[in-house]
């Protein structure tokens, strides 16, 4: 196999955000402020005591947190599999995962609007009396908040420790950090699997307290990974097209990132299809009710959009080798999939409160822009003085010379 390589020209200057950081920070903060202000404004204007706004906020929150969680899992899996191909630029997902503590604070509004989201959390006790057994205890505001706090502690701890130890390695250059993080990764992955599945039950599945699907955690995971791979591709592409990281990221890396995006796109479709098929086939009313709201009536179009937009079209597009090896084209499809991932979450959350018409409000868009702005601003603040490459990672050279067959 003859792949010609340009000699890596990595210099400290092009591996830092430096002048880019203030601009990113300004862009991110303005997006965040404008987004949230518009969303709140629209929420007030709606005059429904923030019910619609609460749903918009939840969609944006789960969408953005899901991306960060997916990125965290990506870092964990890199260590778990002792992988080398991505080690030079693992700093980028590390910075993103280190932002998770901020999302713990951003969860506070959800706690306040919980009664608007979940009938079981409403002050009126009559609404949750009908639940019996575990559900009567499980779906209560206080246990909900306690669980949420536990997830937040675990995720923040994992995100920060992988970030901190990686920075330590920049200074010391020792392999102890790698060893330690590799040892921690199986435990981190297990914790991730447990907390992320429970989070998906708590945050989305419980919106319809009667509905349940054992697949739901896996469905959430598959979406997170599509979002995470798209975000990583977009950031890497953005940094490179603004003159950063020459040599550290080659077409080979884009090719492999593209393969992973392709794989998770397929995996998402596999899980979404299996969940739908099994519920459709069995036709048990408790279960079909959830899909009935989403695939009949005004929301049916969104269902079709997901089938074609989240799977068929990107599946055929990203399958192409050419597509994966052209950073601009790949970035386009990453953006596309990020958008579709949002549509997926929106389609899971909103239909019950707007069963009669398709509802995409200013507050939906405002919250999504706001949360994405937070990611950009957070990336700029955390990453502003840091090298964007893990120069002293023991597998650094392996990553630079990576070839995707």
């Amino acid at each position: 196999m003859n792949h010609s390589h340009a000699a890596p020209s990595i210099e400290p200057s092009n591996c830092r955000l430096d002048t880019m950081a203030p601009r990113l920070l300004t862009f991110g903060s303005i997006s965040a402020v404008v987004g949230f202000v518009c969303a709140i404004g629209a929420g007030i204007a709606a005059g429904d005591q923030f019910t619609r706004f609460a749903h918009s906020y939840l969609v944006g929150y789960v969408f953005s947190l899901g991306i960060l969680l997916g990125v965290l899992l990506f870092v964990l899996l890199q260590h778990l599999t002792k992988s080398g191909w991505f080690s030079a630029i693992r700093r980028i997902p590390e910075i993103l995962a280190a932002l998770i503590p901020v999302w713990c604070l951003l969860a506070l509004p959800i706690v306040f609007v919980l009664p608007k989201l979940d009938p079981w959390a409403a002050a009126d006790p009559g609404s949750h009396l009908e639940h019996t057994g575990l559900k009567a205890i499980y779906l209560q505001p206080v246990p909900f908040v306690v669980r949420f706090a536990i997830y937040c502690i675990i995720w923040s701890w994992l995100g920060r420790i992988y970030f901190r130890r990686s920075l330590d390695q920049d200074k010391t250059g020792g392999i102890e950090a790698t060893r330690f993080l590799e040892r921690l990764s199986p435990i981190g992955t297990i914790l991730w699997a447990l907390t992320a599945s429970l989070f998906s039950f708590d945050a989305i599945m419980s919106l319809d307290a009667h509905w349940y699907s054992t697949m739901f955690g896996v469905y959430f995971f598959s979406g997170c990974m599509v979002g995470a791979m798209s975000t990583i591709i977009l950031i890497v592409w953005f940094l490179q097209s603004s003159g950063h990281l020459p040599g550290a990221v080659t077409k080979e890396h884009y090719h492999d990132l593209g393969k992973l995006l392709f794989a998770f796109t397929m995996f998402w479709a596999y899980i979404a299809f299996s969940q739908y098929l099994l519920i459709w086939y069995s036709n048990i009313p408790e279960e079909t009710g959830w899909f009935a709201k989403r695939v009949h009536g005004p929301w049916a179009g969104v269902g079709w959009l997901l089938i074609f937009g989240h799977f068929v079209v990107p599946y055929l597009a990203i399958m192409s080798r050419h597509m994966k090896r052209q950073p601009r084209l790949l970035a386009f499809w990453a953006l596309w999939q990020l958008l579709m991932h949002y549509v997926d979450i929106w389609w899971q959350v909103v239909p019950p409160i707007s069963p009669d018409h398709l509802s995409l409000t200013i507050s939906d868009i405002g919250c999504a822009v706001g949360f994405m702005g937070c990611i950009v601003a957070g990336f700029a603040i955390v990453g502003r003085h840091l090298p964007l490459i893990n120069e002293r990672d023991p597998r650094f050279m392996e990553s630079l010379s990576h070839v995707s067959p």
Partner: protein
Amino acid sequence: MSTMTSDTSIGIPSVADNLSDDPRRRAPLVVGDNNYATVTEKVCSVVERPKTPLAWYVAFGVSAALATYMVVLIGYLFWTGIGVWGNNQPVGWAFEIVNFVFWVGIGHAGTLISAILFLLRQHWRTAINRFAEAMTIFAVICAGLFPAIHVGRPWFAYWLFPIPNQMNMWPNFRSPLLWDVFAVSTYFTVSLLFWYVGLIPDLATLRDRAQTRLRSFIYGIFALGWRGSARHWHRYEVAYILLAGLATPLVLSVHSVVSFDFATSQIPGWHATIFPPYFVAGAIFSGFGMVLTLIIPCRKWYGLEEVITLRHLENMNKIILSTGMMVGLAYGTEFFIAAYSSNPIEEFTFINRALGPYAWAYWIMICCNVVVPQIFWSRAMRRSVPVMFVVSILVNVGMWFERFVIIVSSLNRDFLPSSWHYYSPTWVDVSMLIGSFGVFFTLFLLFLRFVPMVAIAELKGVMPQPASTRRNAEAPHA
């Protein structure tokens, strides 16, 4: 993929072991004082020995006797009807479907190793893929037996296939049982093709080394005129990667479709949306268990410890640990959702599973699949051959019981207590399970005797491991 085009010997420094986990360098995959020539010699000599070892004859004799017993049992079954089994309402599916799912599950490791690990560039797969793929094919053959003899009127078994006929009678295309026919037969075909494509260069090696004209002729036919030219290799590698891409979704689809047999129903305990990925994880888990059970004695008896090293075994143990925990997560999720649902029927089903008449089977399953693999958290245990041999067997005991628990414990408590029934297998049920192992081992022993059990050409592609990276350094191959 990089592979050798010729069999030249290149001096490679001898490595004592490859167990170091130093992140600065990748561990070599072949240890000892080996080069291309010795690897070819080691693998080929197994099938070239003029005298077959006595132990092989003994093992083959036992397996073939059991396989013959299976044939006799099938004859008996056809003669008397499936009443000789213990199945009865409400337990309409029991041992035979358990065996079917069990064997299909075992047949998952091969294609996972050959396709998914190939796409993930896990180079250690080269020492074990041939072996695992062969195992896959034989396991799927064993699996295919059971639905075919379960149909009641076996002379109509061909009705499973949508064959145009003058009665204009078709199978129900909306039935997952029909999807199974397509899924399993597609999987079998692609696995066989994949195995065979990978074999071609090695069969040519055997042809070129053959001492007798007959051997040369037979291996020559199967080697399809392979000469090892650059053009051959080019086409071969393209075909191989395409097959890997095609086989990857199949690894997921086959056991997903098998899980649909249960999950599309309305039977509590069968109908769970998590079934497809949960079955796939379990299948990989059991498949790796079986690969380990088989590979541990083989590498010892055939002196392949330097090729199938302790590191390979350790990696497989890690996969067993991780897939075992995925299965554990699925068990936990099912229980949690049953409790969360507050649906009395769901709750009853799962309490019945853990505390009801088949609680013993349930706890065997939990111990073998969730508890026992935890021993692999310890590095010493992951590297202890006796420990992993025992664990690998227990994993398959556990996975057999998993299917038993899912199928039988969900059926034995029907919606009306008047229809409750404790299922017990008859001697025919038990004998058929044993007989299926006879069929499996007969085929497997034939494979060991006539086909190189390690992919020699592929192994050479990963052999000399330069210090920093394989690709960057000057590798001695093209």
